[in-house]
């Protein structure tokens, strides 16, 4: 039996393929996704985009619907609330909205946000939901559509400025059986609006679950969005995310993705330039260890002239962990005067670890400035020696340098508590890893 057959017969595919009653919420989207799913094969390693990614954590697990999973109740959710978003917090547990944990107080004129399900009839939701998705031959976004339920909805009217960041917090609890969550985020920022989002995925226990978050972001003319995405899933979890943003004239979209958790994560951020004079960022930090697999496949798609984009993707790999990066920069025909920069730096700390990287440029316009760089290596022995000569132990020196390496990517995260939190996370990672002695 081929792998694909196995998958098709798996609970996962059945789960998504199960008919739902037409009166149910999002019936159209579910139906559409189901029908597309029947035409879409599950990925495997002979497909170029998946050749380095071991999908066994998905294919070897029997996932069940949340209702049948015997999920534990949530506790200690408030530990993960950030103070800046006291009045602007949307909390989901295992993908389901929690009104009592959320806080949707006023956030300034023209800022609307809440559970997507409550805004089903909102014209903005009607216009954009599921319409911005653009992933070719992708079962994961289709699963999300077929199982669409709750989600976060943020709408900024023209000139609206969110007074505080909106925290979209996803908590995942332990459960008797592995379940699937399919959270959705829809952000529509109208002209000249301004918003900061902190999206946080936290595994409260350490069991197996799969989350397939999809976010659709529309940044209209002159709007600014600062989007922090923090992934702290359980060490046995699967996290497959599909965040896509469309940027219009004079707009800015800056995304920072920090990957710490999950047994297997596959993150596919995409930014599509829809008009001239845009500026966007797709930075990432990946700190992995043990048997973790972290895979980032990004696309920066310049379709119009005068765009500026920046991507710094930093990775630290220890233990048996495996990092995969494929960063595509497209500059379409006539998209002149593009200034695009991509840098992928990898620290490989162990003999059992593995790093694959493929920075990819595809350029069809001649008046552009595009460059990428990729490095894989260890800490610079000269730097280690320098710190040792200043009295640090070798372990300490390595810890300090790893910390410094990782820190650069989170400097631009502007929310104070999140910045602090990230520094703690980096610290925790580097400490844990400095205890491990050299293998050779």
């Amino acid at each position, binding site marked *: 039996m081929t792998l694909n057959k196995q998958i098709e017969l798996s609970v996962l595919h059945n789960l998504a393929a199960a008919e739902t009653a037409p009166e149910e919420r999002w019936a159209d989207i579910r139906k559409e996704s189901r029908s597309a799913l029947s035409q879409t094969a599950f990925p495997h390693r002979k497909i170029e985009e998946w050749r380095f990614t071991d999908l066994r954590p998905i294919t070897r697990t029997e996932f069940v619907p949340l209702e049948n999973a015997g999920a534990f109740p949530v506790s200690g959710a408030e530990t993960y609330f950030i103070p800046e978003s006291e009045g602007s917090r949307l909390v989901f547990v295992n993908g389901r909205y929690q009104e009592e944990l959320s806080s949707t107080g006023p956030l300034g004129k023209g800022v609307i946000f809440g559970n997507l399900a409550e805004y089903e009839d909102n014209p903005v939701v009607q216009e954009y939901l599921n319409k911005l998705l653009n992933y070719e031959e992708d079962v994961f976004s289709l699963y999300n559509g077929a199982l669409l339920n709750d989600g976060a909805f943020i709408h900024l009217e023209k000139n609206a400025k969110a007074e505080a960041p909106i925290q979209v917090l996803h908590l995942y609890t332990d459960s008797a059986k592995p379940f699937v969550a399919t959270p959705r985020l829809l952000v529509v920022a109208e002209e000249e609006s301004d918003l900061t989002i902190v999206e946080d995925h936290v595994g409260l226990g350490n069991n197996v679950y799969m989350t397939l978050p999809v976010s659709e972001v529309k940044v209209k003319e002159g709007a600014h969005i600062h989007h922090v995405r923090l992934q702290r899933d359980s060490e046995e979890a699967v996290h497959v995310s599909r965040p896509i943003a469309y940027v219009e004239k004079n707009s800015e979209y800056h995304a920072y993705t920090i990957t710490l958790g999950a047994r297997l994560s596959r993150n596919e951020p995409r930014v599509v330039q829809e008009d001239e004079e845009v500026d966007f960022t797709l930075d990432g930090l990946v700190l992995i260890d043990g048997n973790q697999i972290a895979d980032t496949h990004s696309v920066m798609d310049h379709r119009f002239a005068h765009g500026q984009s920046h991507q710094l993707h930093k990775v630290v790999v220890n233990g048996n962990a495996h990092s995969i990066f494929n960063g595509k920069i497209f500059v379409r025909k006539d998209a002149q005067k593009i200034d695009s920069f991509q840098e992928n730096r990898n620290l*490989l700390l162990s003999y059992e670890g593995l790093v694959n990287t*493929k920075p990819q440029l595809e*350029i069809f316009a001649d008046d552009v400035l595009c460059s990428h760089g990729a490095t894989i290596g260890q800490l610079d022995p000269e730097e280690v020696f320098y710190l040792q000569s200043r009295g640090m132990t070798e372990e300490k020196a390595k810890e300090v340098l790893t910390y410094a390496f990782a820190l650069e990517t989170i400097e631009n995260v502007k929310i104070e508590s999140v910045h602090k939190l990230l520094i703690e996370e980096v610290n925790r990672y580097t400490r844990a890893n400095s205890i491990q002695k050299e293998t050779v």
Partner: protein
Amino acid sequence: MSETKALETMIGEEYKYGFSTDIEYEEFPLGINEDVVRLISEKKNEPEWMTEFRLNAYRAWTEMEEPDWFNATYEKPNFETLQFYSAPKHRPKLDSLDEVDPKIRETYEKLGIPLEEQKMLAGVAVDAVFDSVSVFTSFKEKLAEAGVIFCSISEAIQEYPELIKKYMGSVVPVRDNFYAALNSAVFSDGSFCYVPKDTICPMELSTYFRINNMNSGQFERTLIIAEENSHVSYLEGCTAPMYDEHQLHAAVVELVALDNAEIKYSTIQNWYSGDEDGKGGIYNFVTKRGACRGKNSKISWTQLETGSAVTLKYPSVILQGDNSIGEFYSVAVTNKKQQADTGTKMIHIGKNTKSTIISKGISAGNSNNSYRGLVKFNRKAENARNFSQCDSMLIGQTCGAHTFPYIESANPTGKIEHEATTSRVGEDQIFYLQQRGISEDDAISLIVNGFCKDVLKELPMEFAVEANKLLGIKLEGSVG
């Protein structure tokens, strides 16, 4: 501009001046099957083990699928109607250079090819002082004195069967890929070079090639072995535009370097690239690979790829020996509707192995130019190092430049650095040079040559000059 015209006309037109009219083929069935493979082997009077080698490869090939992962689209060759064997062609001899198409002569002049060589390239009967046989003879004597074996692969199969058995297919196994398998089954001819222990090959193995080995056919096979402490430099190809009635070229080149040996392999490829609409033109699907088997060995590939309609080519080095070095220097120019997907693979296995990749891609017209490379550090490749620089230059707004570098490391002591940039010939640069009195075409040529400098300096001296000129000719009139 008239030179461009001349070149275009020349490579675009049917050859009126005798090349294509009188070519004689021996009767040979079309298509391929085991009988055809046997027949090829028989025609070449090969020993049984060689026939088996071919059959083995053929059987492997029938089970393989034609690849389609590269960044190029073209009409797949029809293997049913392909002629897989053609006896050496008998070119008609012309009496003097005056009979050669003046446009061809103009290009030779522009490239600065010496008169006597021009005659040979054009198929003019040459005088006794400088005929190919005498050059070849003196050449062979000199090599024999040094103990270097240099002959056709067919001859080597007869004369040095032990070496062929030991090394052929050892770097590029018959099952390696679709076109390598096909080549292994039907290869026509090619070169064999063996440099014994402690020997520096006394000359560049190039002049001979340029003159005498123009017709090794579409399935060329090359094998070069450098024994301990030896050194050899080899150049294939020619700056002069090459026309061939075979559309598909699928060569295999294998290099083996033992302890402290060094092989430098340079290529200038200027096959017919098709017309403005992309019609015709050569498919250049080559498998080139070197194995640094010995400690401190070194293999260096340098290529200047300007011709062919479609080029799929990844000269690679397997760095097995500790402290071995692999290098890849490449300039790939595409214009009109050419498609090139080329790069290298550096597989690091031994300790302290080093590789350097310098790739310069220039796209103009409606062409697409891709760099595709792999740098891989195996778990045991302690202290391995790689540096890659892949730059693209675009000329005009209807071409594409692509970079696909695959990088993998499984060893924490290794260090890989990869950089890539995209730039163009700037209008400000052209104006600056024009203000200093240099014409627009010359300005472009200067800028492009500057861009490619790090690669061109790796070419043997006498070819570097021609290469410079070739780049200019290839890109004339492509700006503005």
